């Protein structure tokens, strides 16, 4: 049984200029102890789909799904109280901006122990001991002093470590890391990623790593889901995805990787992700796709079977011999 299983998740925001579908029919599967990477350009609905899972979207969002279960529990039917018993404990999340994601008015120690206070029976001094232990785990030097520091007194990298300590405080079964390194220096980025994968190995938790960095994916993940304009367009084990991408968007993303570029100049995909008002009728990638034809522009593409990477495309690439294209 999957740890997290989501079928047909859609999220629609009601905005001043009408409804906007930020996530469209997305499936997610994560096994216990697995690392899943979700990649995609800015605005492809990576954060929104995970925030929907956590139940952290504002009231303007309407969430629909055929299935949405964590550890066998149906997340859709959950009361607020029941959900609060899960999130922050078995299911936790860290965010993109460490600096603004910590409360400036409270010490890091307070914010770490608060998660323990909420979900465990530990007493005050046990909580403090555990906080020190957590800070050591995430590589914060001089923990007992740092417990008393306010977020603005620490660097971005240190704050992200604090966020991680906070998120793993109650030994979650699944940790969602939403672009945990985007706001950090390159050198710190590698450290934080090592830390996350190390913790994952140590604790055996599932890890969802949201990123738009294919390099990071190659180094850390086991499986990759590629998202585009709110839809999942491909889903494969890492090695297969890099070797035989089936969706033209994935293929273009890989071509944009510096190591793969044939010219000296970094290849980028021309065009932008369609926004609220310029969604094409057929395939959402058709305005930027080099293989697009009339059918692509008018008929929404089907989802291909698993051997073709569940690619959402009329004309998938690298189709293995003997596979039937849907």
């Amino acid at each position: 049984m999957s740890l997290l299983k989501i079928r047909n998740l859609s999220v629609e925001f009601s905005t001043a200029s009408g409804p906007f579908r930020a996530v469209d029919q997305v499936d997610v599967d994560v096994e216990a102890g697995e690392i899943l990477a979700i990649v995609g350009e800015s605005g492809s609905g990576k954060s929104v789909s995970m925030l929907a899972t956590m139940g952290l979207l504002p009231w303007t969002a309407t969430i629909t799904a055929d299935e949405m279960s964590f550890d066998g529990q149906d997340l859709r039917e959950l009361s607020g109280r029941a959900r609060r018993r899960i999130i922050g404990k078995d299911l936790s999340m860290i965010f993109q901006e460490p600096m603004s994601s910590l409360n400036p008015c409270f010490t890091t120690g307070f914010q770490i122990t608060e998660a323990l206070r909420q979900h465990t029976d530990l007493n005050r001094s046990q909580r403090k001991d555990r906080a020190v232990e957590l800070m050591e785990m995430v590589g914060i030097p001089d923990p007992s002093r740092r417990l008393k520091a306010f977020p603005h007194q620490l660097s971005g990298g240190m704050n992200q470590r604090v966020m991680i300590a906070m998120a793993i405080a109650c030994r979650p079964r699944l940790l969602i890391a939403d672009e945990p390194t985007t706001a950090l220096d390159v050198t710190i980025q590698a450290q934080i990623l090592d830390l996350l994968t190390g913790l994952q190995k140590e604790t055996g938790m599932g890890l969802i790593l949201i990123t738009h960095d294919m390099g990071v994916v190659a180094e850390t993940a086991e499986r990759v889901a590629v998202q585009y304009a709110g839809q999942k367009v491909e889903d494969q084990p890492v090695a297969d995805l890099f070797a035989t991408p089936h969706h033209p968007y994935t293929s273009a993303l890989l071509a944009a990787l510096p190591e793969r570029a044939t010219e000296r100049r970094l290849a980028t995909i021309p065009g932008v992700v369609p926004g609220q008002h310029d969604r094409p009728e057929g395939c959402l990638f058709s305005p930027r796709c080099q293989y697009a034809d009339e059918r692509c522009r008018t008929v929404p593409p089907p989802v291909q079977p698993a051997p073709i990477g569940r690619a959402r495309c009329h004309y998938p690439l690298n189709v293995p011999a003997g596979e039937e294209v849907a």
Partner: protein
Amino acid sequence: MLRYVLARLLTFIPTFIGVTIVSFGFIRVLPGDPIIVMAGERGLSEERYQEYVERFGFDQPLWKQFWDYLTGVLQGDLGQSFVTNRNVWDEFFTLFPATLELSLCAIIFSVLVGLPAGVIAAVYRGKFFDRALMSTALVGYSMPIFWWALLLIIVFSGNLGWTPVSGRIGLMYFFDDVTGFMLIDSLISGQEGAFWSAVQHLILPSIVLGTIPLAVIARQTRSAMLEVLSEDYIRTARAKGLRPARVNGLHALRNALIPVITVIGLSVGTLLAGAILTETIFSWPGIGKWMVDSIFRRDYPVVQGGLLLIALMVMIVNLTVDILYGLINPKIRKR
């Protein structure tokens, strides 16, 4: 922090000098001769008049009068009231507890009601409570205090007979000033019903005086909360599985309090101005009523000294607010 407080204390000096000049000038600009006013309808013989002129020092040039006043102030001597002959300083501090008690009750009332109201309005933004509260706050802010006081008196004292109309305590109670705070003194006296009587006398004046600050605090709390609630760290707090009450009441409110504290501090100045009106309406024997009476009597020393002491109080309050601000906002404290 200590250096910060000392620096703030230094800025008191120019303000202090400014207030001294203004308060000295203000009362002398008003037409009317204090001696004539004091004599009233009986009038005064020419000799008696001259006697008073010399006694009050009006025969001296203006700069000399100011100089005498200033040197007096610097030695802590604010002079004597023309009317009662009592020391201005003593009179001020005899009456000040009454004003302080009223102002404290008013500010407590406005914070106790305004803060939660603002928080709830922000949490239920756009819903009925929010709309109702914000329109009420607008009315509260723009309503003439005099009219509001009379309305309350008519309804609660007149029609319903729940609260007394004036004074600090019922006439049948009598006890010595210990602290000058009626709530405390009435308790100390041990007289049955005295404390309750004092409370009843405080209710309407506190509501009247607290209405404008209440409206200001509620609006400021709401807008500060709205801003804070969309911050990333609020999402982090919710992601921990904390109860909404804790997310809103601790994580959000703590941050929202920073601007609200400033507004509360600023409304203390308004409060003292409002106290003058409120005390007059409710015959509240405090600084406000004393100042108004003294202005009508052209009691120069009282008006000068009173204004100076009021300004001093406002400055002390503002300093306290700044210190409080630093305690709540760690970013400032560390500077």
